[in-house]
């Protein structure tokens, strides 16, 4: 990727325009990732600090650096620091919710979490959109109302004339299907592995 390498080279030489280009390429994805773990103010501060550090330490950057990976990793580490410090501060959440959220912190490591890599490292948002389009009709109809329009289940059930539990089932099923579609790489690999380990024999 000749373009990307020269961007880093230009950055190393102190080219501010190159920095701005890098910012425009990566800011939104990195910021959305930060929003997953932190509130808006903290997320913005962390993302800015990470980019600032990128600029300040530009001369020591490796030419083959994957900028997106570096940014996500830095954001992750900063977020963990903040979350660990705040562990006892937030009284708003029930302790049960706190425990659930805390379990996620180590899961969202961008170097080891597939879904994070697919959503934020590889910018699969277009794939996410396509995956939603390919959901079964009724399921998609319900899901889109909830997912894209923030409509509460009760309202969806009233609007479409279906039971509340049907609404919940459709939405949950949609989420699982999206997870499968986005994890396609892994699923495909698993299938391949199974196929090969069968000695290439017919699986079915």
């Amino acid at each position, binding site marked *: 990727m000749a373009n990307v390498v020269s961007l880093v080279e230009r950055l190393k030489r102190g080219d*501010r325009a190159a*920095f*701005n280009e890098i*910012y*425009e390429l990566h*800011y*939104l*994805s990195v*910021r*959305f990732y930060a*929003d*997953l773990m932190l509130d808006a*103010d903290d997320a*913005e501060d962390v*993302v*800015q600090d990470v*980019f*600032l550090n990128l*600029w*300040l330490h530009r001369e020591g950057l490796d030419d083959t650096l994957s900028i997106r990976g570096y940014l996500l990793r830095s954001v992750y580490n900063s977020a963990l620091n903040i979350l660990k410090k705040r562990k006892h501060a937030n*009284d*708003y*959440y*029930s302790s*049960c*919710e706190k*425990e*659930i959220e805390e*379990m*996620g912190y180590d*899961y*969202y490591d961008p170097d080891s*979490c*597939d*879904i*994070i890599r697919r*959503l934020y490292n590889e910018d699969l*948002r277009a794939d*996410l*959109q396509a995956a939603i389009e390919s959901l079964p009709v009724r399921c998609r109809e319900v899901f889109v109302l*909830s*997912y*894209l329009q*923030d409509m*509460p*289940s*009760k*309202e969806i059930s009233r609007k479409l004339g279906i039971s509340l*539990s049907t609404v*919940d*089932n459709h*939405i*949950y099923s949609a*989420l*699982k299907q*999206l*997870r499968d579609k*986005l*994890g396609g790489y892994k699923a495909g690999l698993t299938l391949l592995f199974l196929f090969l380990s069968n000695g290439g024999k017919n699986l079915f």
Partner: protein
Amino acid sequence: MDETIVYRYLSGTATEEEKLQLLDWLKTSPENKAAFFDLKAIWHAKHSISPDNRTSDQLKDSLSVINERIDRFVPINKKTVNHLWKRWAVAAAIILLGFISISILYKVPKVTPDTDIVYVNQSPDSVRKVFLPDGTLVWLNTHSSLTCPSEFTGDQRLVELQGEAFFEVVKDTLHPFVVKTKAMMVKVVGTSFCITTSPDGAISKTTLQSGSVQLLRADGKKLVTLKPGQQAVCSEETDRIEVRHVNVDEYISWRFDLITMSGVKVFSIIESIESLYGVNIKMDTTAIKDNRYNFSFRKHKGASDALRRLSYMTGIPVDTIR
């Protein structure tokens, strides 16, 4: 466990009982944990798949702030040294003058200056409504401040804004209403519009809902006149302004995202949240049933956030039931 609890947790309508079930289920196996947090990440991604003007504005604002921070690190090179010297000389002269004028002040009886009122909204999540001396209504967004005189005297009604506010200006053709920000001034007769300034003040954005406004540079030079549905972005450094057509509601609906209730009893609050989100709330209100509260919350933050705030405010646990 009924797995649709996952969805209810993500949308903020799970009961405490369901949350406990979820927690146990998560602890049962790493597959459950992975499945849940994958779904949570996908759920969270919904905000990123509909990029709109707000996200490109967010990028632009953030970019300008980071550049300002970097500029503070730029080392001084030979070229700027001469200018610096001049700047120091000027600064020294001003300080000297400052000392002189202060010493004069102490000798002359002080005339009471006009008092300026500063309206500040420091709260992180509520909008402040302010009526100015002429009846103009200002919706002051979070982290914003508006300075205005206690009475409008003179040819213009002049106020100063830092942050974001929506103005509904009372018509007075003889006394134009002028909003001054770091980057520019907005002059109106009677009109509804919204002004946003970037955190460092260098960039101002004006969105016009109705009426007509004139944008001026800080020194009074006319820049552009806006029509309803137009938005102008001005930068302090350049004379260049970008004018474009926007969906005005996108930029001003923040006024109504806030639900505010004053002097209400807890059952009114519960009723509002229940009907807004379609949830059933369980709360032991016997001890507080006659208390009156001022309560506000942001609609888009969801039921669980509103309930958390209610619980925190009253000191009583709140739960949802099916």
